[in-house]
């Protein structure tokens, strides 16, 4: 082992002319990455100018320590071959022997001139892939459901109950807060407008229809998609990374039946309840502001509400809740099962899952609005 020099004396270059007239470059000190530090770039230029003289004698025997970086620096200055006259310490010989045998770095891959078309094509195929995957997963769930009807003992009640608690009960706080605030804001803005026309009483119609039919379900769905959807995707993704999914497969426990189905069923049950809760809290928020701004009493508000809003609107809101809940769970599980076992895929999958869920929730809402345009509105 070479003598250990703790001092960080960086490399020193000295050019001398010998008795025979030949010039000699004497290198001394430490030629390591830590010792070179910021001097590396200027030193590279200096060495390159010296290396232009082919008759120059390189004397490296004064170097106390040299590592790969130092050797590469010299090697590059010499244009990847040993200079004609070179004096080396035996332990540094090995470094340059290795450099001589260094494989050529792989050539960088040239960019395809047709890349915009390839990118577009890949996106289309990916979309197709997702569609097929989602349809296959829904089909698998249907088959599982039929199987479970025939074998009711196998229904995963515990998983359903756990998911119900996680996606439903634990979401009550955040949905209440957001619902209440939206109710307050909506009521405040509408009451100011209505006051101008002296149509104060219509605040009940505006709040009732907009919250029960539209805002309650959509708000709840978006919050649940962000909250429970992302956690479902991440859960399945981490199970993939840690090979837990494979462990389930080899035990003969099907993913769709034990992981996906409980989530879909639980969110299908929890979501309408969360919608009901969000709508109720938003209405309370609106009611409080209506009392402050317009002087409408709580009792009056509540007694007029059934007249202003047809009961069909409530069923419509709950129906949206069921559909959105099941679709969110399905999309989250679909993305979760597609995650590959690396960190980047996990992050990307979770983001895609939430973005897709929210987009689909809004599309579902639009479809409901068109299909049921004649229902519940006077």
């Amino acid at each position, binding site marked *: 082992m070479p003598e250990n020099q703790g001092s960080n004396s960086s490399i020193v270059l000295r050019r001398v002319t010998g008795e025979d007239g030949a010039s000699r470059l004497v290198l001394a000190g430490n030629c390591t*990455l830590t010792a070179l530090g910021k001097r590396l770039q200027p030193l590279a230029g200096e060495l390159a100018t010296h290396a232009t003289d082919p008759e120059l004698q390189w004397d490296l025997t004064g170097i106390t320590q040299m590592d790969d970086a130092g050797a590469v*620096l010299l090697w590059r200055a010499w244009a990847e071959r040993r200079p004609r006259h070179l004096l080396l310490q035996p332990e540094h010989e090995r470094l340059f022997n290795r450099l001589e045998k260094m494989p050529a770095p792989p050539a960088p891959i040239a960019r395809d001139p047709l890349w915009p078309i390839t990118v577009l094509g890949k996106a289309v195929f990916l979309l197709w892939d997702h569609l097929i995957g989602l349809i296959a997963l829904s089909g698998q769930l249907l088959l599982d459901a039929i199987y479970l009807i025939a074998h009711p003992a196998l229904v995963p009640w515990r998983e359903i109950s756990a998911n119900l608690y996680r996606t439903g009960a634990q979401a009550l706080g955040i949905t209440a807060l957001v619902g209440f605030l939206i109710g307050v804001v909506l009521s405040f803005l509408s009451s100011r407008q209505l006051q101008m026309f002296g149509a104060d009483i219509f605040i009940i119609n505006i709040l009732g229809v907009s919250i029960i039919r539209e805002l309650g379900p959509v708000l709840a769905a978006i919050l649940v998609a962000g909250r429970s959807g992302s956690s479902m995707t991440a859960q399945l993704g981490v199970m993939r990374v840690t090979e837990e999914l494979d462990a389930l497969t080899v035990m003969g426990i099907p993913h769709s039946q034990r992981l996906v189905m409980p989530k879909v069923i639980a969110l299908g049950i929890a979501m309408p309840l969360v919608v009901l809760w969000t709508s109720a809290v938003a209405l309370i928020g609106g009611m409080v502001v209506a009392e402050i701004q317009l002087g409408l009493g709580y009792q009056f508000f509540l007694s007029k509400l059934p007249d202003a809003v047809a009961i069909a609107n409530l069923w419509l809101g709950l129906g949206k809740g069921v559909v959105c809940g099941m679709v969110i769970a399905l999309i989250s599980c679909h993305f979760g099962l597609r995650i590959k076992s690396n960190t980047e895929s996990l992050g990307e999958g979770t983001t895609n899952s939430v973005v897709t869920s929210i987009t689909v929730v809004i599309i579902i809402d639009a479809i409901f609005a068109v299909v049921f345009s004649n229902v519940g509105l006077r």
Partner: protein
Amino acid sequence: MADGECIIEVEGLYTRFGSHVVHEDINLCVRHGEVLGLVGGSGSGKTALMRQMLGLETPAQGKVRFSGLPLHGQDRAKLQYMRNRCGVLFQKGALFSALSVYDNIALPMRELRTLDEDIIRRLVMLKLKMVDIDTRHATKMPAELSGGMIKRIALARAMALDPELLFLDEPTAGLDPQLSDAFVKLIQGMRHELPLTIVMATHDLDTLVALSDRVAVLAEQRMVALGTLQEVIKAKHPFITSFFCGERGKRTLENNRGILQG
């Protein structure tokens, strides 16, 4: 710093995770230029001790010093300098799964911000050659690699900055015997070329016998023996007896009689 001086000093170290005590009063000095093997049963705190030396855990009591300086409470530049002098091979490799093999090894070099891409490319190729990985694997992602390759590439990354201190956490665990031997040879070769200090936690007696100059044995939260392999074997402790003088231990020591006496 001459050989024999402490590069890492552990002084009266206590480690606790909640109410669970891992170490009690550990005193240890890693000398410059040596290979120190940490031995102990599963859960005896080998990895925890190594993490303490790296500053990944904070001691409940006691001190860890690197080159005479405490690991905690250093300013940013000093700490970075200390970190650049250490290379770590984690048990499972800990390659960044979002980066290719090439970028994994190039990352510590790029972080220095003194090397240009041309030097980095050559250095990466050199490190890959050193751990005997073909250059066609350079563009692969860690998920596509076998366990042995991950270990070797992780070693290449640990060696990227030619550190003077190398930590190996179970370097040969999960490798087949041939690969494991090749790995030991690789590390021996590196020690020949570079003034390297190695701290190694291992279960594997073959690796331990082939590489370590001194051995520290951890059992029952304490360090029960510290010294050369010959000295440690003579110590009377139930763990040492079962580890070195059991069926496997005897066989390994028999095979390596030459090394032990030499």
